């Protein structure tokens, strides 16, 4: 049984994914390419399905060209030419926006040069008609010598015909002959052209070029490459303009400049990117996203925590007390809880990101905020993930996939855990409540507690921006990513596509990062519970947790913690808080043997911490210790879930390891400075 593989290529914002979703089964797999974080989706064609002749569609990243100025284009070209051990596809389905052929046809010509049989889906023909620039479909098909199917992904028009065309593919196309310069680089003219443009764009590392290809390129005169690539691009656009003249009956000036599909959008933009209203609306939209992550997810998270607790109780009742029951309830079920608890925030963020992207607003948001982000060395697209980091780093890091360019994505990923996430709040609140006069007014309505909290958030924000700027200039040095950003026409998002996007990302998290989080939870539970001691054998004031592995570890790291004003009890808490930062509170509760549920109300714990004395009768924790602990939490990467997601997104343990080590060092140094600084000020 031979399976046909057909790549789906097209510009961004042309309805390519909608078309892919309509043509394929809802179950598909994600294709990974070694060393690259961009993914492609593969799905089985379901329209006119023929079990004897299965067809697999490969959805390529949306790109404007195949020249590898970023990973997206590199992946598109590598898939189309069969690199990385994947076979070359048998054909290409090219999705073009009928209302914007003047730009869309450029990619089409580039793809046609590869010589694969092509079918063109001329999408959004309804919009082109309405905008007064109807396309003469037959003339386009005749000019390109390719089958062209008018489609409207929104209504499903043309889907059947497209599928039928894919079942009756035409022959391979003739490829242009290589010129003398191209022949020196590769026997395959398309590859030669691609490598030449990559060399000019200084992006050879994305191409997987062989040593002999690199040597051939290095031997050429750079000025010659420059001229050759330019000539090539200008020749393609000259051909586009010739094609347009015969295909769009409207006057050529309109195709050259006016944007008929943008007329309504330009009116909307008079408000949405207005000098005053634009930023205000942007702030409103961002506040909505932030608020939803911060508080709308709460009831759902509460429900999940309730259900996990209930499941634990039921299991305990059914199995009776015992070591296996503990493993199941406190290890496995709690671990599942630690994974599932992120689902509401992930789903909400991707719902918003999906709606913002598909409606066209995301591009406007980047347009408005780019000036600020450029200061750090990033472009406007990094803003939404960074903001989401205040709620939770997990969805935020997953949200960086909208940023093109691996280095820029990585800088953003490394910045996000510095943003003070909601799990740090219980820690700040415990320390402030225990060691400071939280309600003492400082001035106006501002209390000491509120100002300390504000200080922690400001510290985290400033640090994230500084760290980003540093990485961008050192470790991950690169030019400020150019902002060549299309401002597409506003469109109503299709709920089905958005829902599918939300589901994909959530399932992806559960499958890949979830397994790591579950495993680490079980290990942490083991560390905190074993070896067990009988309650009778405990000395006065001792708790069982002191005898566990984590307890011993906590005691053994005390010499390291003393300089930053902490003791072994906090040490145990720090180990426990790897499960999630707020677990510091419940672990400290266990250390101090507090029976009541400290998650719900930490008042008893606050009092114990406030009243704790050293053997010499001094208070065990002072204000300096408290500040140092909070500062430690601002910087430290005390969160295995963050590390698991970074591993997922960067496809290696290198970056999570770097993140953990660098953040712990920064946290330690910052806590040290805080502690001794505070001491010097007499706190």
């Amino acid at each position, binding site marked *: 049984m031979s399976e046909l593989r057909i790549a789906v290529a097209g510009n961004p914002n042309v309805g390519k994914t909608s078309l892919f979703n309509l043509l394929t089964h809802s179950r598909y797999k994600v294709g990974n390419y070694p060393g690259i974080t961009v993914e492609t989706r593969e799905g089985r064609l379901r329209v006119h399905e023929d079990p004897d002749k299965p067809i697999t569609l490969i959805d390529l990243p949306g790109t*404007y*060209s195949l*020249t590898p*100025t970023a990973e997206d284009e590199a992946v598109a070209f590598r898939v189309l030419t069969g690199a990385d051990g994947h076979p070359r596809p048998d054909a290409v389905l090219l999705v073009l926006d009928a*209302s*914007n*052929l*003047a*730009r869309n046809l*450029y990619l089409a010509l580039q793809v046609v040069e590869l010589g694969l049989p092509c079918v063109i889906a001329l999408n959004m023909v309804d919009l082109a008609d309405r905008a007064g*620039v109807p396309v003469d479909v037959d003339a386009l098909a005749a000019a390109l010598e390719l089958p062209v199917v008018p489609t409207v992904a929104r209504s499903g028009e043309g889907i059947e015909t497209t599928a039928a065309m894919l079942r009756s593919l035409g022959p391979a196309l003739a490829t242009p002959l290589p010129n003398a310069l191209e022949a020196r680089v590769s026997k395959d003219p398309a590859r030669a052209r691609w490598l030449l*443009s990559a060399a*000019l*764009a*200084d*992006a050879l590392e994305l191409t997987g070029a062989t040593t002999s290809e690199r040597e051939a390129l290095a031997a050429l005169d750079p000025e010659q490459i*420059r001229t050759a*690539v*330019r000539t090539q*691009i*200008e020749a393609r*656009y000259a051909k586009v303009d010739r094609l347009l003249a015969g295909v769009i009956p409207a006057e050529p*000036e*309109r*195709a*050259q*400049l*006016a*944007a*008929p*599909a*943008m007329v309504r*959008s*330009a009116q909307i*933009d008079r408000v949405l*990117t*207005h*000098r*005053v209203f*634009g*930023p205000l609306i942007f702030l409103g939209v961002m506040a909505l996203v932030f608020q939803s992550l911060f508080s709308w997810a709460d009831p759902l998270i509460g429900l999940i925590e309730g259900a996990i607790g209930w499941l634990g109780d039921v299991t305990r009742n059914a199995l009776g007390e015992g070591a296996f029951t503990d493993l199941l309830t406190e290890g496995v079920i709690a671990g599942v809880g630690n994974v599932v608890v992120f689902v509401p925030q992930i789903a909400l963020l991707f719902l918003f990101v999906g709606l913002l992207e598909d409606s066209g607003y995301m*591009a406007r948001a*980047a*347009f*408005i905020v*780019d*000036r*600020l982000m*450029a200061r750090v060395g990033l472009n406007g697209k990094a803003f939404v993930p960074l903001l989401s980091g205040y709620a939770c780093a997990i969805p935020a890091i997953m949200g960086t996939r909208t940023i093109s360019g691996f280095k820029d994505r990585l800088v953003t990923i490394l910045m996000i855990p510095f943003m003070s996430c909601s799990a740090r709040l219980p820690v700040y609140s415990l320390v402030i409540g225990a060691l400071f006069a939280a309600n003492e007014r400082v001035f106006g309505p501002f209390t000491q507690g509120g100002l300390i909290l504000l200080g922690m958030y400001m510290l985290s924000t400033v640090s994230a921006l500084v760290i980003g700027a540093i990485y961008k200039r050192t470790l991950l040095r690169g030019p400020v990513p*150019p*902002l*060549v*950003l*299309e*401002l*597409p026409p506003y469109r109503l998002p299709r709920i089905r596509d958005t829902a599918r996007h939300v589901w994909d990302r959530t399932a992806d998290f559960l499958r890949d990062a979830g397994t790591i989080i579950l495993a680490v939870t079980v290990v942490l539970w083991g560390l905190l519970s074993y070896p067990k001691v009988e309650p009778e054998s405990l000395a006065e004031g001792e708790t069982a947790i002191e005898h566990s592995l984590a307890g011993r570890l906590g005691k053994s790291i005390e010499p390291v913690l003393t300089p930053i004003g902490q003791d072994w009890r906090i040490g145990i808490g720090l180990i426990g808080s790897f499960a999630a930062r707020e677990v510091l509170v419940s672990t400290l509760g266990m250390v101090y043997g507090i029976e009541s549920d400290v998650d719900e109300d930490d008042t008893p714990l606050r009092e114990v911490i406030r009243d704790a004395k050293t053997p010499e009768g001094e208070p065990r924790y002072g204000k300096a210790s408290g500040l140092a602990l909070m500062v430690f939490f601002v910087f430290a990467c005390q969160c295995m879930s963050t590390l698991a997601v970074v591993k997922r997104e960067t496809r290696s343990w290198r970056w999570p390891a770097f993140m953990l080590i660098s953040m712990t060092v920064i946290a330690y140094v910052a806590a040290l400075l805080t502690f001794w600084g505070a001491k010097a000020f007499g706190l």
Partner: protein
Amino acid sequence: MAFQSGKTLAELEIGQRAIVKDVVGEGRMMVRLLEMGFVPGVSVALVKRAPLGDPLELRLRGYHVSLRRAEAGAVLVEARVDEARA
């Protein structure tokens, strides 16, 4: 209609149209601009500036694209002076 040469895209007035003459500068950006359609001979118009003054919104080839002033500075144009709003 009158043209004024020796300008770059970054120097257009809001609403002013221009014809692209050349794209200069470093390779990656040049390739990108050319491939997005800023080839010699094409008409471009400056639609607006972002609220903070940068980037710019431009119209060409039936679509709108945003470029930073620094990037737009690499596109040399011949501006149409008769249409510029003072």
